[in-house]
């Protein structure tokens, strides 16, 4: 009763604008890295490793004397694209199977749900380490591993969302009409779950960035000389005393994008909550 009478305060739009601005900035940098970079990211611009910032080399150099800023910008594209691809794949698999399990129920639901329980019970990073160690650290392997470990969580969410819908009268009516699987899943159910799943997408992508950065940090991620944020943080850790920016800048980028994605989720959630 008290909950019913409590007032809801509309969420400020500032969070939404801010988070989108941060994400747009990084996407822009990622696009720009294809056309122009201050230096060649694999070129040795200085003979000094961990040289402090100077003219033309604004963030200094890394452990091999390469331009940190150029590598950071190049790494933006690689990190974001890989995380996006992994999250997209996780959602394609997780959403389809989750909604299907909700719709069909019975044995299919039981089997899929137990498989997902098993996947979720394993520590993600260990699964990642084992698979990457076995298959080698290539971009396709990394993307598929990340998609695989996160598809389980996506399945849980889309199955729960779907289970709420299946009991509704319009689903029953569509089924009694004799509608096929395609229409039930994508015609009737999908329009309702798009919004919460989009919210999950953003959150899941921040997890994927952290996951892949962690793999890179232990040396099983994107392989040198290619740059990604997690790998850069690892490579340049020992230079913290001479050019701290070389390790802190990529770490800060990871933090910024993750926080922006989480704020976006919050803002979207608030919008969805007040819209109903």
């Amino acid at each position, binding site marked *: 009763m008290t909950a019913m009478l409590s007032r809801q305060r509309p969420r400020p739009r500032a969070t939404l604008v801010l988070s989108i601005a941060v994400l747009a900035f990084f996407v822009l940098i990622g696009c720009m890295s294809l056309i122009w970079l201050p230096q060649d990211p694999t070129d040795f611009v200085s003979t000094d490793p961990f040289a402090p910032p100077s003219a033309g080399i604004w963030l200094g150099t890394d452990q091999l004397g390469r331009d940190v800023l150029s590598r950071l910008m190049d790494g933006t594209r690689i990190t974001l694209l890989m995380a996006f691809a992994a999250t997209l794949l996780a959602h394609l698999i997780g959403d389809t199977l989750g909604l299907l399990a909700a719709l069909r129920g019975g044995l299919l639901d039981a089997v899929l749900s137990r498989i997902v329980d098993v996947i979720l019970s394993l520590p993600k990073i260990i699964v990642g380490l084992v698979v990457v160690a076995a298959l080698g650290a290539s971009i396709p392997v990394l993307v598929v591993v990340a998609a695989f470990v996160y598809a389980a969580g996506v399945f849980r969410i889309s199955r729960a969302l779907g289970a709420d819908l299946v009991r509704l*009268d319009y689903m029953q009516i569509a089924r009694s*009409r*004799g509608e096929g699987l395609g229409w039930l899943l994508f015609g009737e159910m999908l*329009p309702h779950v798009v919004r919460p799943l989009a919210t999950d997408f953003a959150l899941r992508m921040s997890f994927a960035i952290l996951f892949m950065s962690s793999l890179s940090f232990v040396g099983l991620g994107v392989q040198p000389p290619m740059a990604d944020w997690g790998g850069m943080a690892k490579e340049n850790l020992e230079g913290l005393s001479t050019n701290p920016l070389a390790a802190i800048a990529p770490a800060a980028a990871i933090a910024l994008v993750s926080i922006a994605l989480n704020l976006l989720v919050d803002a979207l959630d608030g919008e969805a909550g007040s819209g109903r």
Partner: protein
Amino acid sequence: MTAPGKVLAVEDLTIVSNAGTRVVDGVSLRVARGEVLALIGASGSGKTTLALAALGHLRPGLARQAGTVRLDGADVFAMTAQQLNDLRGRKVAYVAQSAAAAFNPRLRLTDQVIESALLHGAQSESAARLRATDLFRYLALPNPETIGRRFPYQVSGGQLQRFMIAMGLQEEPLLLVCDEPTSALDVTTQVEVMRLLKNAIADNDTAALFVSHDLAVVAQIATRIAVMRAGRIVECGPTAEIIAAPREDYTRALIAACGHLPGRDGALVPAAAPHTDGLEARSIVAGYGRAEGGQPAVLSLRDVDLAVGRGEIVAVIGESGSGKSTLARVLAGLHAPASGTLRLAGAPLAALDRDRSKAERRRIQLVVQMADTALNPRHSLRRILGRTLKFFHGLTGAQAEARMADLLARVSLPAEYLDRYPTQISGGEKQRVNLARALAAEPEVLICDEITSALDTIVAQSIIALVKGLRDELGLAVIFISHDLATVADIANRVTVLRHGRVVEAGPTAAVLTAPQNPYTKLLTASVPELRVGWLEDAAATRDDLSAALRQGPSEAVPA
């Protein structure tokens, strides 16, 4: 400011929505101790908004533009959140329509009833528990000393509504705001809860605001009636005066739409002999849970027969739990019966929809109670109707457009509604769209499962007239499921009364309504609210007599 004895004084209150609509438009009213003011009007008339304003509450998206609400002399909209918390429960209490939604299913009932008194520090825990037990006894709850230890799902809907009333009365408030407190109950339970509520208000000398869309219910309990329309009070006066001499057309329409059994006026649909050219169900046994020895664990239907012919309406009447919705689902092929046979136009019909042919599925169409959940809110009406046309008849493009316009005209909706979404139309209009979708299949049998229960009286009447028209003009066989005898009295050719999954009485409407044989049918006919002062007391007396008879009856092997 406030006249002595006035508990609630509303002055020139105007509440606007974000969209700029005046939901409550310059309303003034006063309620004194011992007085019950009923706010009556169709959905969207602003009656609930006005009642909640008495609690100092505005739903999100609403704002007070002008006016004051004074409770016991204090302006509730000038209060801080803390002051409002102290006020609610203590001076003003709220009894919601859906007790099931108002209780936390994981907390014991007594704990929830006394929670607000403990939070306010108004009563010690032991005193609060004593008071609650007294209230349970007063509200005629069985085993008042122990029933409060149960969880909400362990009591019936009527009992839960009584706990809701107990919660409202716990701190002896000056004003009780009741929002459709009996609308969600079965008719026979409604009589009991209304009587208890009426006595409770009188014995506590409480003032009450009573929101309802049903004039017959209100007439039993209110001392004064305020009729609301489009945010304004169009008519206000003592109950007897409003009923005897309504001034506004709208009030007259409300009175005309009031449920009454026409059997007493002699205007009944001629009874037809049972037909078999529609849908026929024989010896249906159905239930839920794991089957043991060929019988499901929980039986909802026991050996039920039902037949409906083309061009007739057969009503199935029963309370919640009587198995009537299970029957609808069995007929529609959504629930597999444990045993029994179905025939469509004389030919055997498979039990489950997936075993039925597309043509068979097309010929039987189901319309359900909740118009909201029956329409996919993300689909425009064009998509909703168009899908059925394409699916069953392969109609697309201009042909489909023309047919959709026909269908909307058939259910009296304008053609431009095709581009609207379900959220953009009213509850009654949604139910019309549901009917239109069923008609798009060009069915022979229409199963209507409580299609008017969620609608207010006048809208429900128009839907019933529509269904009657479909039977007469299209020759449909209609199975009309309802919990309310009065709803179907005007249109049904035959009536089947279900109780605990058994048919207790079946026959032509006139015979069942005017000379019911089974005590349960008698109780049902006696429970239909009549628009006269004093009916409640008569009905309660009849109820007590018949309940005793029912308890001794041989068909009562299964407890409710």
